[in-house]
């Protein structure tokens, strides 16, 4: 058996004549974290639903651990759907017992795992509360617990950060990393690339159902080289765009990312900048995933 957790081969899914997923392929090695990135409507959720056997692909193959989807695999996968929901009238502890049983766990294991996970997520005091009494964030955390309760080999998280506050986003990020350290393979989708950047091993970018980029994070970033400058400034930077050695500018108001055609031009850039605006910081950096994505989409469009 090879070392692949998941293989997708030329997946196609058509909704009313519109291609939601178009000839999408992917190989994921065991023990890696993969970020499935792309804007809303790119086909991330459709791809995940096909992996989870919720909808059938029009064509193409899916293999998990070298097998076609089957009942046995279900206990090895943890899945967090994009839209969250639990039974409102059930207590927290009952919910965990129910989902644990559904994943084929025995009572003792369910109890042990629930106790430690509830403590970790600060939900222990709520274990006898009904779901409808929890806040939205707490319910989200509980749902993540139900997803990882059975210690799956493969974890599929569809937009795991949506609806969480920064503290809980950190918590979920740490959890993903910790699970991964324990050997769990993880795929998660997000349109928030700045979060993905910090945890993924490799990245697949998808737009309009098509894969636009696939590779290890460091390779991708390496390809683009250190041609990016991050500037924190005060003043009106609109002139930067018209500088002829500048390829791209992303202005955030107080900070901008500038892509140069050649890193050697950075000294000229400093001169040009200080003549018009005041500068708080000037950093040479790797491109953000966001920038890479925008460039890729532009290239595809050409």
């Amino acid at each position, binding site marked *: 058996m090879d070392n692949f957790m998941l293989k997708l081969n030329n997946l196609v899914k058509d909704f009313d004549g519109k291609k939601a997923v178009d000839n999408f392929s992917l190989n994921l090695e065991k023990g890696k974290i993969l970020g499935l990135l792309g804007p809303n409507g790119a086909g991330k959720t459709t791809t995940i639903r096909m992996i*989870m056997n*919720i909808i059938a692909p029009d064509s193409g193959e899916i293999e998990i651990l070298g097998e076609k989807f089957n009942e046995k695999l*279900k206990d090895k996968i943890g*899945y967090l*759907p994009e839209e969250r929901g*639990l*039974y409102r*009238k*059930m207590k927290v502890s009952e919910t965990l017992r129910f989902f644990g*049983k559904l994943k084929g766990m025995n009572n003792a294991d369910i109890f042990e795992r629930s106790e430690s996970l509830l403590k970790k997520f600060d939900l222990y005091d709520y274990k006898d509360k009904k779901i409808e009494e929890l806040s939205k964030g707490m319910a989200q955390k509980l749902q993540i617990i139900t997803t990882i309760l059975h210690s799956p080999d493969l974890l599929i998280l569809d937009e795991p950060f949506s609806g969480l506050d920064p503290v809980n986003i950190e918590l979920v990020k740490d959890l993903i990393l910790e699970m991964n350290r324990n050997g769990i393979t993880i795929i998660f989708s997000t349109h928030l690339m700045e979060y993905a950047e910090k945890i993924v091993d490799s990245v697949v970018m998808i737009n309009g159902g098509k894969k636009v980029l696939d590779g290890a994070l460091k390779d991708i970033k390496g390809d683009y080289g250190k041609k990016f400058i991050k500037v924190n400034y005060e003043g009106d930077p609109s002139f930067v765009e018209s500088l002829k050695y500048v390829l791209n500018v992303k202005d955030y108001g107080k900070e901008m990312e500038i892509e140069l055609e050649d890193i050697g031009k950075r000294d000229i850039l400093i001169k040009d900048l200080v003549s018009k605006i005041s500068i708080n910081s000037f950093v040479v950096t790797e491109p953000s995933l966001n920038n890479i994505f925008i460039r890729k989409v532009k290239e595809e469009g050409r």
Partner: protein
Amino acid sequence: MKIAAIISREYKQIVKKKSFIIATILTPALMAAFIFVPMLLTKVGREEKVINVTDYSGVIHKEFIERSEKSKYLKEKLKLTFRYVEDNSSDQRALLKEYEAEEKKTDGFEFKLAPKFKKMILEKKIDGMLIIPASIVEKRQIYYCAQNISDFETNKYINTVVHRVLSSKILRDNIDDPEIVGIVQNATADIKPNLFVVKEEGTTKSSSTTAYMMSIFMLTILFSVLMGYGQLIMRGVIEEKNNRIVEVLISSTNTQSLFYGKIIGIGLAGLTQVGIWMLMGWILMGKFSLGIDRSVLNFLTPQLGIYFVLFFIIGYFMYAILFSIVGASVNTDQEAQQYAAPITYLLIIPFMIGIMVTQNPNTPLVIATSLFPLFTPTLMFMRISVAPPAFSQILLSIILSMGFTVFLAWLGAKIFRVGILMYGKKPSMKEIIKWIRYR
């Protein structure tokens, strides 16, 4: 077994509901009220009544006074007291004559009651005024004035007494031979009909109204339980669909486990409820019997109980599957109500045919409809309760409806799988076929 987890969740979710607990306790209470209250009202809940009797013929009143003094039945059960009012001086006699003279012209609409009697009644010094005219023998009429004239038992009692006294007086006045008087009295005496229902377990006293009322009553319970639990399933499916729990469920277990687990779990909850009801009913009726009409007890045989549970189970599965298919194919409760309406009609039709069942239980239409699987649970049960058909027919209906249910379950699971994961738009035929093939 993952299906066990689903069954147990669905079961607990229903049984723990407050509404379930309330309905389980309250329904037998309402049932008891439905059966007992009318009986209690006619027997126990009687007020004491005083009726004045004036008798211008002079022949009838003695019997009333005598009975008032001696009859225990009159005093304790009917709580009636008759008092004789000697009234030769009053103007009631004149008023009566006037009324009798005008009766034909005015249709006898307004009776001329003497003001002092009217006052006594309105002030509730007495409850009624019985006036026996001098012409009683010829005209065979009496007059009873009261505020409440719908007390059936009192009316019947007065009638019977007057009738008896009058007939023996007429006989004695016209025939000298007491033997012949006896014979004629015998010949014209009332006949008391005793009605018995023939069943395998025995031939027992009953009345046609009891059988009809009870079977309609049990049909109503069957209907409301099938409807109630069907709707519960439907709403549960819509909830899971809307909050996408179903995606997690489907990715943890297979559709069959989800579909059948849900139906079995909720069905067990329904069976628990019906079981508690039957147990409570059995305790109430069997142990204490609470002065219920014997005919009700005779109607509720253990055999009927078994049929009730059997048809409940078959009917439940049939309608639960139909309701869950609707739940899986729609997105909102409103939409669901619209699609569930035809299912409700299927449950209501037997009520209409039910009237026919009580009158002519063996017409071809009744037989055919009770063998039609969707109607069997209600109609065949009604036939069994009113006039048991041949066992072969019962057996055939059970086989047909069970076979139909199995087919429905197979088809339902397929449609459920497609419907429950389709959001927004309705699944196209192409999509459905693709899914049935894909599995």
